[in-house]
């Protein structure tokens, strides 16, 4: 049996459940947006921890052989709801740390993008080309970097907090004086088409995205303007490197972002451990969700310490 952990307010969770339903494979879905419905109990058995998920149809008796997780994010300031969600996710994370079945993806391994600058170093170490970057809270450094890059610079958050990259245009330069309030990540602007590589086990799906804006998410989601999303191609070395890099982080799946310049230079921007893959398969027609479901079905553990 496959366990799906996620949020009914997210696009991925319903899509995963639908795809599993269509596959006919047994699964249980836990909606973390209703956290009071479930609890996780830990037992010791022959020196091993056994976890039982209880509530809302879960009896804690059915073996769980593979797990998909994309945790809900808090969309409320209601203290009780936040506490309940935090408790459920905390106990689930304890379980996922030691689950003996495949977990796509283990939350404990999915943190490198907390610091984009740190992840950039990992990408460079793995052999990817990365953009010239600067993290600073010094206004003069920001300006010097802008001049060195001949005004072709974007800025965005250093951490996992959601920010959309923006071009550092001349009219925004006075805002550099605000840098002492918070460090910021500056990167050379790499113009070109976007490529998203979704890794699923040993498979990879390359998607090409063409948009008017610096960030296609801004074009599509905020400006509601059309973007081109289609199956793309990258050389096999890059694709294999994406798969190897994903696995090196202890992940089964990922969504890796690239920019390809007109001269062919391919620059790695980041790896998302919990990609919104439904956005890409809906627009490109690539069967990414199905590949994830297939992976979970094909790679189920025979022995498990998780029951639902």
């Amino acid at each position, binding site marked *: 049996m496959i366990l799906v952990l996620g949020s009914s307010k997210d696009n991925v969770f319903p899509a995963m459940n639908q795809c599993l339903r269509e596959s006919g494979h047994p699964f249980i879905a836990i909606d973390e947006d209703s956290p009071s419905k479930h609890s*996780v109990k*830990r037992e010791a058995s022959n*020196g091993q921890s056994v976890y039982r998920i209880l509530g809302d149809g879960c009896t804690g008796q059915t073996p769980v052989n593979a797990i998909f997780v994309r945790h809900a994010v808090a969309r409320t300031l209601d203290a009780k709801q936040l*506490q309940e969600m*935090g*408790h459920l996710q*905390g*106990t689930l*994370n*304890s379980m996922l*740390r*030691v689950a003996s079945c495949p977990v796509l993806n283990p*939350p*404990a391994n999915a*943190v*490198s993008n*907390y*610091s*984009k*600058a*740190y992840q*950039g*170093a990992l990408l*460079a170490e793995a052999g*990817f*080309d*990365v*953009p*010239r*970057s*600067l*993290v*600073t*809270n*010094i206004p003069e*450094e920001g300006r010097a970097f802008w001049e060195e890059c001949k005004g072709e610079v974007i800025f965005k*958050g*250093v*951490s*996992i*907090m959601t920010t959309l990259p923006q071009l550092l245009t001349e009219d925004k330069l006075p805002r550099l004086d605000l840098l*002492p*309030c*918070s*460090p*910021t990540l500056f990167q050379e602007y790499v113009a070109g088409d976007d490529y998203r590589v979704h890794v699923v086990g040993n498979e990879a799906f390359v998607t090409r995205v063409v948009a008017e804006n610096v960030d296609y998410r801004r074009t599509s989601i905020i400006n509601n303007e059309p973007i081109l999303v289609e199956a793309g191609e990258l050389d096999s070395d890059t694709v294999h490197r994406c798969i190897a890099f994903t696995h090196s982080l202890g992940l089964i799946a990922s969504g890796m972002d690239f920019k390809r310049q007109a001269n062919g230079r391919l620059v790695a921007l980041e790896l998302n451990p919990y990609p919104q893959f439904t956005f890409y398969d809906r627009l490109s027609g690539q069967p990414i969700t199905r590949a994830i479901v297939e992976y979970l079905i094909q790679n189920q553990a025979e022995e498990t310490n998780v029951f639902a």
Partner: protein
Amino acid sequence: MILVLGHHDDLLVKAVRDRLAGDGTPVLCLDEQEVCSKTSFAFHQSRTRTDGYLVVDGTRVGLDEISSALVRLPRMWWPPEELDMQDQMFVYHETSAAWYAMLASLECPVINRFDLSWWLSDITYPDALVHSLGRRLKVHTRTDPPADVLPPRIFPKMPDPACDSVYIAGKRMIPRESTDRETSDWATEHLPAIAEWQRENGIGLCRLDFDRENNELHLRHVEIFPVLNEEPDAVVQQIGNATAEMLA
């Protein structure tokens, strides 16, 4: 230049600084407020190069001038209240993420080179450390089941008087009390396995808490941010000296 990030009243920081001062080693010590609110920095990265510098009280210190670092940040800093809650949260994470990247880039010894799980206060991390070291040492582990109300973050755990506790600083084992000597000797015999675990996890300094059942050791807790306030002066000094030796 040795970089010490920690509070001036932290007993370990104090012991390390005293020892290093005796040796005449230059030390730059910044507390958490100074790190997060008063230190300017620039950190450059490209495919082939990583470098940067800090500016402290107008003095520029290159990251390549840092020969070792002691990280003892209690993670209690929070941005000023004049920002709204959303901005406070944003600045907190931006600052943490920037410092994490800079510290991770240092090629010199860093004690401890905390995992992102620690920086993010992942409350499942302490148990994960117990299980990973338990596997290495081939000893039983015993961790408490999740409490009814989970802690909001990782808090350092003080030694349990019912446990045998041993501090590890590099290759040195320091029993907490004379009654812990047998366990300390046992740990010394297992130094290769411990050293491998230390390398894997970036942990040069920690405290191991064991309990015994039927004369078998059970690993209960691994404290990677040991607070020394309740320790006798002699133990604090030994840990400080051993830590200073790792940094020197």
